């Protein structure tokens, strides 16, 4: 049941007015998040500055290198699970040799960017939100503003650069490992020779599959940064607020990534 009070709009006289208030507040938050990331995007030429490039490199290290262990495990097992499931079905029709093509197409087009984005949203996105949220509630962001240091240039832009550059590279890494994982299963469980697996993998995939997947990954990186930095910089309410910002970052990122993934698939293949 809808509760008038839950919309935090005491001056709203009806339920519809409260809904309208909520829609406006939501639109305002989306606008602020988009504006924040757009500002960071426009500041990207500054990333080569002497004093900021170290921070950019550090963020690339945190996003890229630090994510490799978990991505390695996830990618290998995703490829293995997918090869096993599709291979068992294909085996019924005597088509198990085609399993390489199936794994490659699905990874390049959908699962590679999607799995990578989920891992990065949960690890890097939540970490960004928690760090910026803590800085906000402990007045470190205000301190930067008073020192005339633009938080968007100093904090948001390096993270955006790191996510935009690392997401396609990590997706590529995920794809390669997933295909390799599929090859292990194809050889050991389905009796498909490595050469046959690779022939179908390379033969069926097109350049468009690779490029569309990498473009998706870049878009997902943009989304993760937008959600995480917005949630962090607009944190309110101390430690509880930081927890809310971190949780919201993961949940909202997942949802927006899923919806954007569908829209991009429709654009490329619809």
């Amino acid at each position: 049941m809808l509760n008038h009070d839950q919309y935090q709009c005491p001056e709203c006289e009806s339920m519809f007015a409260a809904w309208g208030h909520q829609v406006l507040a939501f639109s305002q938050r989306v606008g602020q998040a988009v504006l924040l990331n757009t500002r960071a995007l426009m500041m990207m030429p500054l990333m080569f500055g002497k004093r900021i490039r170290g921070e950019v490199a550090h963020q690339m290290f945190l996003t890229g290198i630090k994510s490799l262990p978990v991505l390695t495990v996830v990618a290998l097992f995703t490829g293995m699970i997918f090869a096993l499931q599709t291979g068992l079905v294909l085996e019924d029709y005597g088509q198990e040799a085609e399993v390489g093509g199936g794994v490659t197409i699905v990874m390049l087009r959908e699962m590679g960017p999607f799995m990578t984005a989920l891992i990065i949203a949960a690890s890097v996105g939540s970490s960004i939100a928690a760090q910026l949220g803590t800085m906000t509630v402990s007045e470190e962001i205000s301190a930067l503003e008073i020192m005339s240091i633009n938080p968007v240039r100093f904090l948001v832009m390096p993270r955006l650069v790191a996510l935009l550059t690392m997401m396609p590279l990590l997706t590529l890494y995920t794809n390669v490992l997933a295909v390799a994982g599929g090859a292990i299963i194809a050889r050991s469980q389905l009796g498909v020779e490595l050469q046959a697996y690779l022939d179908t993998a390379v033969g069926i995939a097109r350049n468009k599959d690779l490029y569309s997947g990498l473009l998706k990954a870049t878009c997902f990186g943009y989304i993760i940064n937008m959600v995480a930095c917005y949630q962090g910089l607009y944190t309110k309410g101390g430690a509880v607020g930081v927890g809310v910002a971190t949780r919201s970052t993961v949940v909202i990122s997942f949802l927006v990534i899923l919806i954007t993934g569908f829209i991009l698939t429709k654009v490329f293949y619809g």
Partner: protein
Amino acid sequence: MIRFENVVKEFSNRPVLNGFNLHVHKGETISLVGTSGAGKSVTLKHMVRLLTPTSGDIRIDGIRINDLNGDELDALRSRFGYLFQSAALLQWMSVFDNVALPLRENTKLPEREIEQKVNHVLDQVGLLPSADKLPANISGGMQKRAGLARAVVIEPDILLYDEPTSGLDPVTSRSIDELIHQLQKDLGVTSVVVTHDMISALTISDRIAMLHQGRVLEVSTPKEFLISENEIIRGFLDSQCISPSFFDEFPEKVLS
């Protein structure tokens, strides 16, 4: 130098500053005291435009700052040093890098000159041996001193202190008071101190302003403040066991 003219600030239709008037003179140290929620920290944040008044004017050297933006706002803020209640040091940087940050970001000074300036202020606040430590690895008092070093390294005209002694033990609090007073003497800056700590306010201030319900109740010298007959001020002093003969009982407390 800093003038609040009938300033009103509302949060969700609730006034925190309500017809607030205050004039801070150049070169003086003024303390803003009062109970929690009286509007002390909000007043401080208006001075550097972290907050914008709902109505009324704030002027610094006659210039209305309500609508400043961009470079003008940066120019205004470059005149201020601000010590936050939590010190607000960046946790991933060493004490040295925290203090060097405003110089590295806002000036074109060579690194060697920055190093000299930072070492000088760290020496002033007694933190030179801890320059390489991270904020998490030093005590609360040391963090406040590091925050103070960061505030003064840019050689500001105006220093703002938000609860400089809160959360510190009495001995460390008094050392912070002495440091504030010493910096005031050395740099000759205008200082505005927000505090609950009446001993601190009495010892470092030229004037004390008592805030109550978003307005200035009374502004007076520390000696006048001690003998004020205002009931709210008397209650505030009594709550901290400070008698009208404070300076006679503790003459060593007179710093300013």
